[in-house]
């Protein structure tokens, strides 16, 4: 009994914090807002740790907490499923969230929306916990939408900035596309299984998978039910976890404050899709088609989003594209049935990517809200803690042996190599190439920011900055976007001061650097200690299901594994290690030694560069085809349907008719008594004619 109360405490503590900070945000002082929310998250974090210990002792739980409503035979319940997968996510979510909460004190200290911000991030923590702890699809969907909502609110946190509003609208719309697929998938589950409870659905799935097909058009050839459900659910994951082609919202989401970029758009929310697919492993295992789809989407994301990271100049956008690429890696791992590897990478990535984002945020504070890496350089001297921790994060990201990223990413690459599903070959190429690309753009950013010439504090910066503001605004391609861009220039001019000439960057306060250090520790060690139990022990036994006969990847991977230390020392003999090293070396050569080479390449490969600059024209395509098409359709329906048919003919037409009729009826009411009597006589006459003649 006591554990169940503890389960309840985990999501509710942040909710209470969010409610206090949110409902009273105008009256309570700042210290109270951050104290209650941090306390709430800290309680949730501690409780998660206790539950983790309990689950380790073998006590899992699956049961309802509250029955919301019953409709026919369907029960809609709030319930918890506490197992190894859940508890891993709970630990990741609460600990990263706690770090971000602390960091926010420093990052947002001058912001007027201080209390509101704390309320939002606590609300996010609650929503995310509800998502990962749910034991049924309905609650999953609730959490799914709730995190989406908070993400929307936070991207548009600075709601006076047109670019932020544009970005949050974009995130909202793109996620609707994903959610449409997601809810269709849930609907299919409900229709065919008659329940939304995970355990019941999973138990029934193999039996239904064998012979159920869905006829798409009439009675023709159908699609296997499981394939349809899994692909639809995965479309939801594509929206939430920003997979191509639904990735376009994530780079723009960097309009939000940096702490939420770390928490929501790197460590937790965007990984909800990965978590969901892992949770649904008993379903995905039943459809090779769906798995192949997952692999292909994941590998495209992993490689092509990495390329975009190379040409970005905004420090946060570099990290954002890196996040997209890493999410692609996780998706590929899911596709090859290495769910535990995906979750493992999710966990390590949560730590080192949150670290990188918070490091970037620290740099931004140091640079007085200038985000352009071309204006930085040599920050190592001025911001030593940020420098060290960012280096650790970058090393973890590119997969340096012994760092956490190494273990998870190498495991993904190896499992892809072992898979025989259609698409795995392409995926292997993508993830291998991705290693090089990752190393290149990570260290390009690292070198440009922390080493080399000090480019800040120059008078020319402000011009360069204005140019940058304009390129920023290129994200908004629509007519609206252009209008927004002009506004953006004005607002940027106010908000992004940059450093004045002669001014030096300074190290950030302890509330900022403490989370950096706290996150740097797991970024280094968590892979080393985690890999053996999580991947090859029976940690996820019961939580993740793998059909070992059809997809023996994990078993074969286990044969190759001889301990974490051996794996790291063995790395030197693999291509992966050398590709990463090559990437680092090349970026050093390009950006430290010969800065003229990138410029030369840029001018030589014009078309390629333009392609990358425009992000493969995804935005333009969406803008013209979907937004334009929708506007055209809307305009057509408005002019033709609403204004013409409904307003014009139906509403105004009937109003005119009624008015005419009323005028006529009024005319009859002449006031002359003989007219009245005559009307009565006519009435009698008509009734007589109708009835008496009939009788």
């Amino acid at each position, binding site marked *: 009994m006591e554990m169940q109360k503890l389960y309840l405490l985990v999501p509710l503590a942040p909710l209470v914090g969010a409610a206090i900070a949110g409902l009273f945000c105008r009256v309570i002082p700042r210290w109270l807002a951050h104290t209650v929310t941090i306390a709430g998250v800290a309680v949730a974090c501690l409780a998660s740790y206790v539950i983790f210990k309990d689950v380790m002792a073998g006590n899992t739980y699956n049961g309802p907490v509250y029955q919301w409503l019953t409709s026919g035979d369907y029960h809609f319940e709030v319930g918890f499923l506490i197992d190894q997968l859940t508890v891993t996510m709970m630990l990741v979510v609460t600990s990263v969230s706690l770090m971000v909460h602390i960091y926010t004190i420093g990052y947002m200290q001058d912001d007027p929306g201080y209390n509101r911000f704390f309320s939002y991030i606590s609300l996010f923590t609650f929503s995310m916990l509800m998502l990962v702890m749910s034991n049924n699809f309905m609650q999953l969907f609730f959490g799914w939408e709730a995190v989406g909502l908070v993400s929307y609110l936070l991207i548009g946190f600075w709601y006076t900035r047109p670019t932020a509003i544009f970005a949050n609208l974009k995130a909202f719309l793109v996620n609707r596309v994903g959610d449409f697929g997601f809810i269709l998938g849930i609907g299919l589950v409900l229709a065919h299984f008659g329940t939304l409870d995970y355990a019941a659905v999973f138990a029934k799935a193999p039996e239904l998978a064998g012979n159920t097909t869905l006829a798409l058009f009439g009675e023709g050839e159908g699609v296997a039910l499981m394939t349809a459900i899994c692909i639809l659910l995965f479309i939801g994951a594509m929206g939430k976890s920003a997979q191509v082609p639904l990735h376009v919202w994530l780079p723009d989401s960097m309009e939000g404050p940096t702490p939420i970029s770390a928490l929501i758009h790197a460590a937790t929310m965007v990984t909800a899709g990965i978590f969901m697919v892992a949770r649904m492993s008993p379903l995905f295992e039943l459809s090779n088609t769906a798995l192949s789809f997952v692999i292909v989407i994941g590998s495209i994301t992993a490689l092509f989003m990495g390329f975009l990271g190379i040409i970005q100049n905004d420090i946060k956008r570099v990290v954002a594209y890196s996040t997209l690429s890493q999410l692609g890696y996780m998706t590929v791992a899911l596709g090859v049935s290495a769910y535990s590897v995906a979750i493992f990478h999710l966990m390590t990535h949560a730590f080192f990517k949150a670290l990188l984002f918070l490091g970037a945020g620290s740099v931004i504070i140091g640079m007085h809200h200038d985000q352009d890496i071309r204006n930085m350089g040599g920050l190592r001297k001025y911001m030593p803690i940020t420098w060290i921790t960012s280096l650790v994060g970058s090393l973890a990201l590119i997969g340096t042996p012994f760092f956490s990223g190494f273990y998870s990413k190498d495991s993904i690459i190896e499992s892809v190599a072992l898979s025989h599903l259609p698409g795995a070959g392409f995926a292997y190429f993508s993830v291998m190439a991705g290693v090089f690309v990752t190393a290149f753009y990570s260290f390009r950013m690292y070198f440009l920011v922390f080493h080399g010439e000090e480019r800040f504090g120059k008078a020319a910066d402000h011009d360069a900055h204005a140019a940058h503001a304009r390129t920023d605004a290129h994200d908004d391609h629509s007519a609206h976007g252009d209008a927004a861009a002009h506004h953006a220039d004005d607002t940027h001019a106010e908000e992004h001061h940059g450093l004045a000439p002669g001014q030096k960057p300074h190290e950030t306060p302890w509330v900022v650097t403490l989370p950096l250090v706290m996150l740097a520790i797991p970024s280094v060690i968590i892979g080393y200690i985690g890999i053996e139990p999580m991947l090859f022990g029976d940690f996820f036994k019961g939580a993740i299901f793998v059909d070992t006969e059809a997809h023996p990847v994990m078993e074969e991977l286990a044969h190759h594994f001889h301990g974490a230390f051996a794996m790291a020392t063995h790395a030197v003999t693999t291509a992966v290690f050398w590709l990463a090293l090559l990437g680092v070396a090349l970026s050093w050569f390009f950006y430290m030694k010969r800065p003229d080479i990138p410029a030369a390449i840029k001018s030589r490969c014009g078309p390629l560069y333009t392609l990358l600059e425009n992000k493969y024209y995804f935005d333009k395509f969406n803008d013209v085809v979907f937004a334009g098409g929708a506007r055209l359709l809307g305009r057509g329906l408005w002019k033709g349907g609403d204004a013409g048919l409904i307003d014009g003919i139906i509403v105004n037409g009937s109003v005119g008719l*009624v*008015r005419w*009729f*009323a*005028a006529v*009826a*009024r005319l*009859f*009411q002449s*006031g002359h*008594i003989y*007219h*009245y*009597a005559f*009307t*009565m006589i*006519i*009435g*009698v006459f*008509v*009734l*007589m004619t*109708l*009835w*008496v003649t009939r*009788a």
Partner: protein
Amino acid sequence: MTLAEMQFQTPELRLASAEIFMLVMACLILMLDLFVKDRKRTVTFVATQLTLVGAAVVTFATTSGDIGYTFSNMYVGDLLGDVLKLLLYLTVIVVLFYSRGYILERPQMARGEYYALTLFATLGMMVMISANHFLTVYLGLELLSLSLYAMVAMNRDSVPATEAAMKYFVLGALASGLLLYGMSMIYGATGTLEITAVAERLYMGQVDRGILVFGLVFLVSGIAFKLGVVPFHMWIPDVYHGAPTAVTLFIATAPKLAAFAIVVRMLVNGLIVMAPDWQMMLILLSVLSMAIGNIAAIAQTNLKRMLAYSAISHMGFMLLGMVTGVANGDARFALNAYSSSMFYVVTYVLTSAGTFGMILLLARGGLESDELEDLKGLNKRSPWFAAMMMMMMFSMAGIPFFVGFFAKFSVLQAVVAAGYLWLALVAVFFSLIGCFYYLRVVKIMYFDQPTNSLPIIAPLDMKILMSANGLAVALLGIFPQALMSICAFALLRSL
């Protein structure tokens, strides 16, 4: 018939004790008033109200729940009659309270006759309600009508009022003629005027159908005039508009109950065998009323006139319940259908009383306040009364969770149960059109700027009563079940 064959029985006076009480008191008050010096006639007013309360006590005390006949079967006492009479007293009491301030400001009206006429009209309605004989119906109807003609003309110096009274009188006489002619035809066909006896003869089947239908047409026309349904509605707008508002309030409320009663007495109790015929007639009248009433109301700028057309459409809607009692020779749904009509008429009277009461409340200093313009910005002048009026309008429009919605809903249920889906759709369609002018009133009250910023001064009793009236409209909308079961029970024990 020889003298020896005539049997003299002492009529059972118990069944008519309320009527006797009312008659005696009305005469007494007429005389009492001669001795009242007070220009305000407070004594007369109090005595009238006490008479109504007394009648209620008598009715309540003598009610037995069984059907009893008296005066050689010319008169019936049953639960339906008692329930309707109690509602009638209540309505008249409320009407008198609402009217008090208005008539005090008009010296022509502030006379004892006003109260005596009210009581005589009430007596007429009581007779109509308890009639078991066509002539009793006629007697009651004439007593009511003659009192009303006089009341409309009470304000002698007002040209519109006298004109309205004249129209009402002439057209009323015509309608009475139609009704009497219809009765004589029915006498010719069946050889009796006693309603229950007519029903028996019709069951036997040895009746000339041709003559009967002929009579039925005239009978229905007469009833239609009293209800004010198209095409016998022409008097309604002019009389509602021309009459002093206090009298309009009276005409618009209590007689509707009596009219419902005579529909039940004559058509259901007496001519149920002819139901297929009169139902079709009523359907025709009902659809016409809903159409003309709702559409013509839109063109009105005077509130009383608008409400007159609204009354036409409401009576049309009420008739829908009466036409669906017998479907294809099957009377299974009759009780539901008739009780839905009864519920409709009762709640309509309640809402209508509140609406006209509001016009009276706004009228002051001898001036009328019956134009739509006068409601402008009422919310600024008095949010509470604006809210009451809004509830009244919502209820009339049939917006859910006000009593008018459930009234419409139960009638429509009966219509659909009887298989007349098209009729239900027509009714809904015209109600939808009707929403326009009710909601326009709400819009005027809430969104227009007041032209008159005087605060509203009304006696406390009126304020309390108005609030109770408005709240009743809202509360009955939330808990309609009690009143619905009373209607159903009264009809069950009386048919």
